[in-house]
């Protein structure tokens, strides 16, 4: 959910509560104000009638439907103005109506009169209606302004934030440039930007250090390892016994393994560092065909039955060198772990690369082979980094690798989309 929508919803809810409470308050205020004004008016009327009685008008002739004059015992104390709601017959409307009755007593010429005067009150429903209509209009006006605000206002206010987001999105280790965010006048955004700038600087420094480390590591190990290899090759040419030959072979192979591990790890590091940008899509079909051709002898050696279905112009956005590493890894795996006289099917199209091969069925979930140093057979000579390189390549170029066992065949699929 967008921040602005959330804010709007909250704002609408709060406004609704505020308008409701405000409406109630206004309703109460209206009601009491009307009652008060009406009371004063009635008081004035009653006073006027009392004056007329005082000036000699006969009390019983003044009476009409709104006025009630009654004589009460003289010794009762004078009654103050007394207001109450009542239902009385209203002549013009010809029905009973809510009315306000005001009464007060006067002592005039030795007589005690209680004068009561009725008047129609403004009904509660009428007030409610007015209040609700008013509040609703206010609410609508607010919604209108809110809509305007979210459409235009927020865009303007949040523009620096979106600019920052865009910059972060395009941040790239290869460019080796820390973020440079434009200054802006909103304190929070300014704080965020300066924090991001510092962070990007630090990230780049860390990245450089790690990169240097992995590059140095592979370089520093490769040189002594090259020396070992050279010395062993010289040693092979000496007059040696079979026992010595075996030892040389063993050292030689271990040295080769170190080499492979270092090379694979440095490849993984490079992939993790997002090197090898892929500027455009390339056609994988010639690469697949060439690699299968290059491994023809190995295929023949294992007497594999090979079927290929390679669609031309199978375009994928990937670095050409890495595409070769990926496909070579997959196909050589399919050959290496195959059984004598087994099967190898390679299918390539726009949508996926699918490699099926026979082989021993692993006990564990084949997906686990994507992990580093994970091997199906612990005695195998492979170093167990091949599929983790595959996985890292897939992650780097937004591909999806799936490893399943189907009909007793190992099926490795790389989905391009």
């Amino acid at each position, binding site marked *: 959910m967008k921040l602005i929508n959330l804010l709007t919803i909250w704002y609408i809810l709060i406004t609704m509560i505020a308008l409701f409470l405000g409406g109630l308050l206004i309703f109460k205020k209206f009601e009491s104000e009307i009652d008060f004004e009406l009371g004063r008016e009635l008081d004035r009327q009653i006073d006027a009638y009392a004056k007329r009685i005082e000036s000699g008008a006969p009390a019983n002739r003044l009476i009409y439907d709104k006025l009630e004059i009654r004589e009460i015992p003289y010794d009762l104390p004078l009654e103050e103005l007394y207001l109450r709601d009542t239902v009385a017959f209203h002549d013009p409307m010809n029905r009973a109506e809510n009315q306000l009755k005001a009464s007060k007593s006067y002592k005039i010429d030795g007589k005690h009169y209680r004068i009561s005067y009725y008047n129609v009150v403004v009904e509660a429903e009428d007030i409610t209606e007015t209040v609700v209509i008013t509040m609703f209009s206010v609410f609508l006006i607010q919604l209108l302004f809110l809509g305007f605000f979210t459409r235009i206002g927020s865009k303007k206010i949040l523009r620096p934030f979106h600019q920052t987001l865009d910059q972060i999105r395009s941040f790239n280790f290869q460019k080796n440039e820390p973020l440079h965010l434009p200054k802006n006048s909103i304190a929070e955004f300014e704080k965020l930007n300066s924090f991001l700038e510092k962070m990007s600087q630090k990230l780049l420094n860390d990245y450089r250090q790690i990169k240097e480390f992995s590059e140095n590591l592979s*370089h520093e190990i490769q040189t002594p390892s*090259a020396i070992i290899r050279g010395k062993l090759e010289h040693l092979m040419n000496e007059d040696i016994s079979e026992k010595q030959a075996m030892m040389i072979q063993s050292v*030689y192979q271990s040295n080769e393994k170190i080499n492979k591990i270092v090379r694979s790890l440095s490849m993984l590091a490079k992939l993790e560092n997002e090197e090898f940008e892929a500027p455009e899509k390339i056609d994988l079909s010639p690469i697949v065909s060439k690699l299968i051709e290059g491994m023809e002898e*190995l295929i023949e050696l294992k007497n594999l039955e090979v079927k290929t279905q390679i669609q031309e112009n199978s375009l994928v956005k990937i670095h050409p060198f890495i595409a070769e590493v990926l496909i070579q890894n997959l196909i050589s795996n399919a050959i290496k772990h195959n059984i004598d006289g087994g099967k190898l099917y390679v299918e390539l199209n726009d949508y996926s690369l699918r490699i099926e091969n026979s082989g021993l069925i692993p006990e564990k979930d084949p997906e686990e082979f994507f992990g580093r140093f994970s091997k199906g057979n612990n005695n195998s*000579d492979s170093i167990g980094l091949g599929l983790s390189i595959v996985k890292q390549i897939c992650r780097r170029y937004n591909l999806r690798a799936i490893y399943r066992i189907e009909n007793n065949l190992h099926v490795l699929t790389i989905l391009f989309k």
Partner: protein
Amino acid sequence: MKILIIEDNPELTQNMVSYLQGENILCETASNLFDAQDKLLGFQYDCIILDLMLPDGNGLDILNFIKINKISSNVLIISAKDSLDDRLQGLDEGADDYLPKPFHLSELLARLRAIYRRSRLGGSDQLNFNEIVLDTAMIQVKVHQKILDLTKKEFDLLLFFITNKNRVIGKEAIAQHLWGDYTDDLANFDFVYQHVKNLRKKISQAGGKDYIKTVYGIGYKFDPNIS
């Protein structure tokens, strides 16, 4: 053939020198850019083996130096920097070949010979070895004047053996020579055995001697002194 090895690691230089000297290659060495430039101005070399990471600069500078001074030596780059960029840049700037470290000495020799053949002999060369004649331009082998029906890989294998004759060549070196990077993941070397077997069979069938000897489990040796 006279070469200059520009490499800062003395052990590695020593390895190369002692291997190549046995092949009648005259080796001189330089351990930094300065020495190398000095030697290049003073002497004539057929080929330069160039390491890219030198204590006083990048080996690629030598390529420029060679161009400016119109030195006609070929250049074989050896580098531990296994990065694609360096490889492409090196070849772009006029190097003849690029061999990533660590390499097999037999491979180094084969590459040197190949460069030499390409540039000095116009690619065509006949290697005579007793009854065996290799024509590198035609990719053809004759044993007792009879053309052998060899695959490209078998031809490369024989050339590799004859170039490194009298040397023990490890199975790994052979695999890497024939299949390059593909061997990275192929731990078993049955296919090397298979190829050597086929080659031996074809030479024997044509009446050639079986020069190729198995050396324990390590590898093979093309032995001219076979009885």
